[in-house]
């Protein structure tokens, strides 16, 4: 192989000419190559600018998820709870002031105090120290006793008192009448 032909194509070289013929198919035609065939690597400056976008987007997404979860959990505590949750109700603190107007006013079945849910009866009551409404309900259910409202208990007690007095006085009448009957029998 002569170096001249390879340098400036002077002279002739059979071997090189044969190779040129074979490779002529792949000769550059001068047209631009389709961009899809070319992988462009971004410049170093552009990569730096776009680098913070992805973490920022991820942070925003996580924040949105956290806020929505917190909002949903708050909404659940305000609305109805399953019955099993009633056992975990917390008593009102002792010093919680109850306005006089509200003491006999009907209150919703569930109300929120801060982030704690408390069951109240239909008439507002102040729970006694050391006891909770839930524990009293459980105690009554365990004892198998019917739940009576304050008015029902009062009416029942009054009825018992009235009936007992009536019965005792009628007994006096009976004894008096029977006593006279016995006297009449003895006199005869």
């Amino acid at each position, binding site marked *: 192989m002569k170096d001249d032909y390879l340098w400036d194509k002077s002279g002739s070289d059979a071997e090189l000419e044969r190779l040129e013929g074979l490779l002529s198919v792949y000769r550059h035609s001068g047209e631009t190559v389709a961009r899809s065939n070319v992988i462009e690597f971004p410049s170093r400056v552009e990569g730096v600018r776009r680098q913070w976008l992805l973490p920022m987007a991820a942070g925003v997404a996580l924040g949105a998820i956290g806020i929505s979860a917190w909002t949903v959990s708050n909404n659940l505590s305000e609305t109805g709870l399953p019955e099993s949750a009633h056992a975990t109700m917390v008593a009102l603190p002792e010093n919680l002031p109850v306005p006089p107007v509200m003491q006999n006013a009907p209150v919703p079945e569930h109300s929120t105090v801060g982030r704690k849910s408390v069951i109240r009866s239909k008439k507002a009551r102040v729970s006694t120290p050391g006891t909770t409404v839930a524990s009293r309900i459980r105690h009554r259910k365990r004892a198998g006793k019917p739940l009576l409202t304050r008015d029902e*208990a009062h009416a029942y007690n*009054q009825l018992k008192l009235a009936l007992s007095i*009536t*019965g005792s*006085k009628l007994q006096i009448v009976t004894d*008096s009448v029977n006593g006279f009957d016995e006297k009449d029998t003895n006199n005869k």
Partner: protein
Amino acid sequence: MRNILQFFFGAAIILAGAFAGMSVCGQDARIQFERLKDMDAQARDVVEVNIDGKMLDLAKRVTLKIRDKDGHAKQIGEAISGLKGIYVRVYRFENENEYNMADVDALRTQLNSPGWERLANVRSKRNNQKVDVFTMFSGDIMSGVAVVISEAKSVAVINVIGPIDIETLVELSGKMNIPKIDIENDSISKRPGTEEE
């Protein structure tokens, strides 16, 4: 003219009879306790119980609601099912003859009015005891019972409006944790029974 006068006279008699009948039928079996107001200040112990209207309905529902082992609540509920009111007044005094007997006699006068029938009248010189029982009937249905017991140191008036099973009431008195109140001895003894509440 004479015929007209006879007609009006007969009509007047008929109307008077009709009004009298209506007054008896529509007579309320409730006693007026106003004459006993003075005893409130004089008496050492006063027991006043008024159960009627909504409270009585509530108490009836409670007796049906409570289920005790002996079934006394149910019995009481059945005994008072037709009642319309129960009124009790009991006064106990420190000393003998401390109250005005005229007030009690005025009460008895009410019960001598048409409609009331005296069922029992017991007098005893011991403790100056006077016992009167009156009943009122609307047809065949008892519409009221009144008991007036006056002694030297106590006065008791009981007025029950409506039909009541007296035998059951006397039987149940002292049971079902109803205190058997013996005012004469100034003591209250409770029969041990099931606590309902």
